[in-house]
């Protein structure tokens, strides 16, 4: 048997310390009494209290949440369709281009995506604001959803779909009643991923947004440029908390689904 050597453990510990230490320090200093984020001066929650009196920040948070909810939902629908198209129809005209358009946005530098979308909106005379922001977010997040759902579809047993079709179910009914329930956890994680990506985005938002549609990362960025303050640490801590909670819920849901599926299968075989 291959052993888990001391070297393996040491590299994991080092790797995770590197990944988590900066975030832990950021969270700790959000509770700092002093205005400095480098010298500890006692515990305080005053920066959190102050946040709730910062109207500009609250407005930005509200815009961010609305954009996130709308864009993640539409991106999930489009991304799931794209994943179906990629896995089910291996041969159609322009498939190469299609898969290119799914994968390229995953690595495309954000400055290029942002600039090109902005120039599109200007060319068709679409005023920049809430809706251009939402359209941009749908476009770059749907590809992440497509990749997540696609990996689930690839391990999907298609014989149960065929069985449903043989029994006279229409393709739409088969999709809604057979396929969707099985891939639901992946679709849900796709949604959560799209939502958090939308919540976090700065560069694409900055290009495609207009007056009155400032998002939280845009607000944080303009404050960071003026200097590092515990108040920003506090906003960041809240955002990290929301994302961590979302990921936790998503993983619990998918694990429970998985257990349920295993149980169902065992029950089916027992008969």
């Amino acid at each position: 048997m291959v052993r888990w050597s001391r070297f393996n453990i040491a590299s994991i510990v080092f790797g995770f310390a590197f990944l988590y230490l900066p975030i832990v320090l950021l969270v700790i200093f959000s509770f700092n009494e002093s205005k400095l984020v480098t010298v500890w001066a006692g515990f305080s929650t005053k920066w959190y209290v102050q946040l709730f009196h910062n109207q500009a920040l609250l407005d930005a948070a509200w815009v961010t949440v609305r954009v996130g909810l709308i864009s993640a939902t539409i991106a999930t629908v489009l991304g799931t369709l794209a994943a179906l198209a990629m896995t089910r129809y291996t041969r159609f005209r322009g498939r190469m281009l299609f898969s290119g358009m799914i994968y390229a946005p995953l690595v495309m530098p954000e400055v290029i995506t942002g600039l090109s979308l902005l120039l599109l909106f200007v060319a068709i005379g679409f005023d920049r604001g809430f809706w251009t922001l939402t359209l941009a977010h749908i476009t770059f997040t749907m590809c992440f959803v497509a990749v997540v759902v696609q990996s689930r579809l690839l391990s999907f047993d298609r014989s149960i779909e065929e069985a449903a079709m043989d029994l006279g179910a229409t393709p739409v009914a088969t999709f809604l009643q057979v396929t969707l329930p099985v891939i639901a956890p992946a679709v849900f994680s796709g949604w959560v991923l799209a939502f958090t990506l939308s919540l976090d985005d700065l560069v694409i938002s900055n290009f495609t947004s207009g007056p009155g549609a400032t998002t939280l990362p845009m607000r944080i960025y303009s404050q960071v440029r003026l200097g590092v303050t515990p108040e920003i640490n506090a906003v960041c801590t809240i955002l990290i908390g929301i994302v961590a909670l979302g990921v936790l819920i998503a993983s619990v849901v998918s694990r429970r689904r998985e257990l349920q599926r295993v149980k169902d299968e065992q029950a089916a075989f027992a008969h």
Partner: protein
Amino acid sequence: MTKLGSALFNRLVIIIPYAWLTIFFLAPFFIVLRISLSETAIAMPPYLPAFNFADGISGIGEKIGQFSFANYVFLAGDALYMNAYISSLKIAVISTVVCLLIAYPVAYGMAKAPSTIRPTLLMLVILPFWTSFLIRVYAWIAILKPEGLLNQLLMTLGLIDEPLIILNTNWAIYIGIVYSYLPFMVLPIYSSLEKMDLSLTEAAQDLGCTPIRAFWRITFPLSMPGVIAGCMLVFIPAVGEFVIPDLLGGSETLMIGKTLWNEFNANRDWPVSAAVATILLLILVVPIMFFQHAQAKADGEGR
């Protein structure tokens, strides 16, 4: 009816996302190209159209003769832009290599971990990926500042007498890129190592191969698909990175993403920024196609 409905459903599944991506992802590149070939104007939008769609096909043909390559000539003639491209590529290559050196042992350790704790480890690698990029870069400012936490620690330990100047130098950019992109490198390497048949290395060792030799002859070559995917996932976005050079880098830092941003937001020179973006895209087109090819192959194997 069923047959017709089925055909319609199949069509729509392809057409809807296809049309969306064509309009919002592909078409904009042609607009960028078009604007990069037009002249700067002091107006809103600040460019003179290279051609109007209203002119029709003949109009386009007529205008092609009038395309202005002035922006490209300007870029080629200005050392600032050339240096920015070269230094972005250099920074991206070095960061990718460092990232690989750190990520490989982590991914290897994860793949060899007991299967009961593997899901937890995987979750811990994925979690930072879901946390804001901006926040994770911001966290480093407080650490790297001259009076920051790293210098405080090193001075308390007596390792240094004067604070190290790291923030606002290229060192900070390397740290920022390696840190931010590390999960992108760990995940594909881990997934290719995890799929690997461990009995292969055991067989090699039974036949008298040393563990180190077995690693280089068997494990590493078999993990190549993951290594390549990871390198592309780090290298391509790192070339055009904006947030990291802007927040951690100094005034002497030249990276093309930052140059493009400034050209667009501060100088409001849209045609020049469109030309900068076009050249950046041309540089990245080969790595992107390479990445897409590797991904498509990896997905094909899953079938």
